[in-house]
């Protein structure tokens, strides 16, 4: 059962604010201020310009936490508050954390190394070193909120966040854990941005802020990188009922697969996406017509979006003519490890108010584009079961199915 959510994003720091921004078609994609993009092909990204962790974590000593850790610890604070887990309750019932992240502390790692190169190894910072591990944000967040149960970091690229939710769901199903924060995070930093830009994965130089990326559109020419953190509070049903928690929804199914061609072979790529969806469907005991909407992974990449559209059709046995589709990376950008959990947070809001955000810039789909219900305008959708996809650059595919909570 999902009993709460916390989100830090450039489009709002609560599920309701994020959903409202998405519903209004606001774009986070703007010229980047965090670092210089001079000489790079893409100057745009979805950065949280005014992020201040003290707003969420108070005046405690935040010095040991790097930006990624601050994003995660802040989102954790919001998710714990939203689900009603007070400090006192956490002393009785241990809570864990499963975090998905593609890079976690890449910027800290690189800075630590560069300082040693420039000033000599004796001048490298020991405090930075403790943050160079890829599980740093999960560890720092556990310390900040006294989360002593399972603490696992999953790193599978774009699918990291959805994989983390799947992992946590399995731990709760098997009785190994009762209450887990699960989701993902990644920060915008020069090192990863440079890498994506040089690999030609970002929307290119002729772009205008707010107009790109355009998932599924024939004019798409790459994604935009974003940043943020999103965490769900997952609990076993008995615990949630016992403490009278509000229930936002339920994770009813998940599935994963791997495309060994890493996107190079369209047949294999499409089959891997379909396979993850089929696993999630059978895990949830649902049939294709019972899926009420899709939150797509599509981020504006040439091959990836096409593979996803075909993979969804195959995975749902062709029953997609009436399937409303959204792709919130059109507005948030590709937030990597945070992306799947961001989609989950937004989908829970859609289940609550019936508004499925449009894909604002989507005006020119290719001929015979199979997802006919992907629209630029918002759609009214009565969603009981929603499908979320995460599809990575390196062949990872993960699908998750959420069902609406009892209070709706």
């Amino acid at each position, binding site marked *: 059962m999902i009993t709460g959510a916390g989100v830090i994003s450039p489009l709002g720091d609560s599920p309701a604010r994020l959903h409202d921004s998405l519903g209004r078609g606001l774009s986070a994609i703007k010229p980047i201020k965090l670092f210089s993009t001079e000489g790079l092909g893409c100057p745009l990204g979805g950065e949280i310009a005014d992020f201040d962790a003290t707003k969420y974590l108070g005046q405690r000593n935040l010095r040991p936490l790097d930006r990624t850790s601050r994003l995660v610890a802040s989102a954790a604070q919001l998710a714990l508050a939203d689900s009603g887990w007070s400090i006192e309750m956490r002393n009785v019932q241990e809570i864990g954390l499963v975090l998905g992240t593609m890079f976690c502390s890449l910027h800290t790692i*690189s800075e630590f190394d560069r300082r040693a190169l420039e000033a000599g190894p*004796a001048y490298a910072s020991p405090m930075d070193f403790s943050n160079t591990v890829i599980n740093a944000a999960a*560890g720092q967040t556990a310390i900040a909120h006294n989360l002593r149960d399972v603490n696992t970091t999953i790193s599978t690229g774009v699918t990291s966040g959805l994989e983390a939710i799947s992992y946590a769901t399995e731990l709760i199903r098997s009785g190994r854990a009762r209450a887990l924060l699960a989701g993902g995070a990644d920060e915008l930093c020069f090192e990863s941005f440079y890498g994506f830009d040089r690999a030609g994965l970002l929307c290119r130089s002729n772009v205008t802020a707010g107009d790109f990326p355009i998932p599924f559109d024939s004019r798409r020419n790459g994604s935009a990188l974003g940043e943020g953190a999103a965490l769900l509070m997952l609990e076993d049903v008995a615990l949630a009922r016992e403490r009278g928690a509000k229930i936002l929804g339920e994770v009813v199914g998940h599935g994963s697969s791997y495309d060994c061609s890493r996107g190079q072979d369209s047949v294999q790529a499409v089959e891997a996406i379909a396979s993850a969806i089929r696993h999630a469907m059978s895990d949830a005991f649902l049939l294709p017509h019972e899926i009420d909407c899709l939150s797509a992974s599509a981020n504006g990449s040439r091959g990836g979006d096409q593979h996803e559209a075909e993979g969804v059709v195959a995975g749902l046995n062709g029953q997609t003519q009436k399937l409303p589709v959204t792709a919130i990376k059109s507005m948030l950008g590709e937030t990597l490890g945070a992306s799947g959990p961001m989609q989950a947070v937004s989908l829970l809001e859609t289940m609550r108010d019936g508004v499925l955000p449009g894909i604002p810039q989507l005006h020119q789909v290719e001929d015979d584009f199979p997802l006919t219900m992907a629209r630029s305008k918002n759609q009214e959708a009565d969603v009981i079961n929603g499908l979320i996809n995460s599809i990575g650059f390196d062949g990872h595919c993960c699908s998750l199915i959420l069902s609406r909570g009892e209070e709706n």
Partner: protein
Amino acid sequence: MDRRIVITGIGVVTPIGIGCEMFWNNLLAGQSGIAPVQSFDTSEYNVHRGAEVKEFNAEDYILNLDAAHLGRASQFAIAAARLALADAGVEIGSLDRKRAGVSMGTTSGEPREVERFDDAYVSKKLDRIGPEFIQLYPCHVIAAHVASELQFAGVNTMIPTACAAGNYAIAHALDVMRAGRADLMLAGGSDAFSRITFTGFARLGAVAPEICQPFDRFRKGMIPGEGAGVLVLEPLDRARRRGARIYAEVAGYGLSCDAHHMTAAHPEGAGAERAMRQALADSRTNCEDVSYISAHGTGTATNDRLETIAVKRLFKDEAYRIPISSIKSMLGHTMGAASAIEAAVCALAVFSNRIPPTINLNDPDPECDLDYVANSARELPVNIAMNNAYAFGGNNASLILRKRELLN
């Protein structure tokens, strides 16, 4: 499907030998793999020794991908995976590709890629860094490369929980198989010798100048190392059907988080104790049934003392009976690979009734007063082995392996 999961193959790439047989013989003979660092110039450091893998030829193992263009941790992982499959007698062509998966752990992913980035950045030649950075650096590429090389299209997970990552990855593979999501999993860990890691531990004053001597009164620290360990996991019924050699059953695991400090363990070993306790409960094992403990045993003053305290807190008087050894005395600390290689050691101990020694232990620390199998291997019945691993971020993981004769 049988929910009892067994180890049928072992593949290791270590500083004291590549392949199960050579490694195990050298380990029982108490051979050390610690030598002057070759990977980079250490003249600016005050320590100079490491445990590197020697005479490793990636082309011997990597048949489908381009070995020369893979990071070293990916090369190690593929080699260990191939060795494990060969050891298990698995014909890759006979597998259902979609039900064959990979679960790997790491501390640093492919650190040499970010080091190359930093070298270019510092020398103002960043234009030398091209698309390969994003294709080779993110840590998930290790599991992805293994799967692409072997055409495994099932679950593909990377768990970067630092120095306990191997145990986390094996535990996850166990859950995947218990849930019936795969027929065969490759599970383990891999790390390449890293300038960043070496710099960090040296800066913390945690690196020993000459040798690694866990539990000795005059121990001076850990020695950074590298390597990979991969296990083949299969359900018991499947392993029996194909007449496979069964090393041991993966009987259960426990995970916990200190939530205390990023780099220092809890002063009473509380988190370590909880992980061990859960592992015993998960595998329905009593303290008196444990025949061997493979210690985390890094050789730092704090780790060895606190680990001893935690074992005594849980096992009480039984603690003095159980042989405990640290193979890090010979291999150094192979980071994310360490607990995977140590899990292989537990499997071999259970299979062959022999326990490797803790070498360089001549003058035991009075605060470390248990039986650490000093300096010579031992032969005795090993029915149940416990594998302990602890990491930055307070991530603790314990694994229980059980003798096949105890399976009905």
